């Protein structure tokens, strides 16, 4: 059986963002940063799986160059962990999501304070078992981003996974 993992609407558009667009956005720190933009992209991928059997869905995310987000297990309780929250969907049983280990990071102005962060690409794995047929899983990625001089309020990146088990 082949499951097709895809994202709907906005996320599909997000995948098509070109490096030129990143470059276009480069500039001095804005005041304030636009509220509706995101520091993290969701990148859709196809998966081949068998219906009725445990399958690990890989959710690929990409943190914008120059930024980092806390890992799922930051080294301070004050820091906001990166979390994928998926809503229950009919015909799908989910197991606890598996997160990658964070990379060690320190702000240049505070080298003694070690952080655990994600930069660049990172993958969250979600083991599921689903019945044959069309499915949609909706959810969000909750994260809080910083660059090397400023931090940005926590954001939710909507995630909608649409696939069909045949």
């Amino acid at each position, binding site marked *: 059986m082949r499951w097709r993992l895809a994202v709907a609407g906005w996320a599909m558009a997000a995948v098509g963002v070109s490096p030129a667009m990143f470059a276009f956005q480069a500039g001095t720190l804005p*005041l304030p940063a*636009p509220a509706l933009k995101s520091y993290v992209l969701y990148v859709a991928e196809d998966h081949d799986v068998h219906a009725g059997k445990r399958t690990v869905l890989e959710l690929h995310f990409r943190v*914008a160059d120059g930024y980092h987000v806390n890992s799922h297990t930051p080294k301070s309780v004050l820091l906001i962990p990166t979390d994928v929250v998926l809503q229950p969907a009919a015909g799908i049983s989910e197991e606890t999501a598996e997160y990658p280990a964070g990379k060690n990071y320190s702000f240049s102005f505070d080298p003694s304070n070690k952080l655990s962060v994600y930069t660049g690409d990172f993958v969250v794995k979600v083991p599921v078992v689903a019945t044959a047929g069309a499915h949609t899983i909706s959810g969000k990625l909750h994260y809080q981003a910083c660059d090397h001089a400023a931090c940005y309020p926590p954001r939710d990146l909507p995630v909608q996974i649409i696939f069909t088990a045949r």
Partner: protein
Amino acid sequence: MFQVKRRALVLGVMIVGIALMVWAGVHNLRARRLAMQKAQENHVELIPGSAGQPGKVDESDADDEGEEPSLRGKVAPAFSLTTLDGKKVSLADYKGKAVLVNFWATWCGPCRIEMPWFQQFQKQYADQGLVILGLVDDVDAGDAAIAKVAGKAGVTYPILLADGKVQKAYGGVDVLPMSFYVGRNGVIVEETAGLGPKDQIEAHIKAALASSASGAPSGGQ
């Protein structure tokens, strides 16, 4: 007669062809605009090439998309907030003083770096009329966590619980730390986003202190 009909037919075909091309062009342009709009809703936040040199923020630096204008040169928006101790503090309480309004959050590393600097400047320039107010953005962290972070930074200046309205009044505060240096006349002398050099912060404080209280506009203070 036949030639006239033929010419008319060719002309008609040409007109239809051109009309189809124009329609296709418009349709394509519309589709591309829609695709761009969708992409822009999710594209990655701008990469501040000068992030790390936050300091001054010029209005000309602002992105055209949804950017709030700079508040520099405008009367500081009034606010009345509660401190961690449960006291009411208003910006208007400090009329004639230079006030540094600093937005911060418990999860913000750069914020925690500059808070001890502010504490030092508070002591250094208090006699000259400087007041520093720390407005904590993430009140949901809880009083204990807020007090812990402030205490660890050695802060004794008032920590106020931002109520959401004050963030909006100050342009949204989507970057932390964010500071507004309010002159004695109630006008914002300078505003900064992100962690700036300590000497730059001091320069902004001096600029606020140097402002004249005379002819103060009636506003926040």
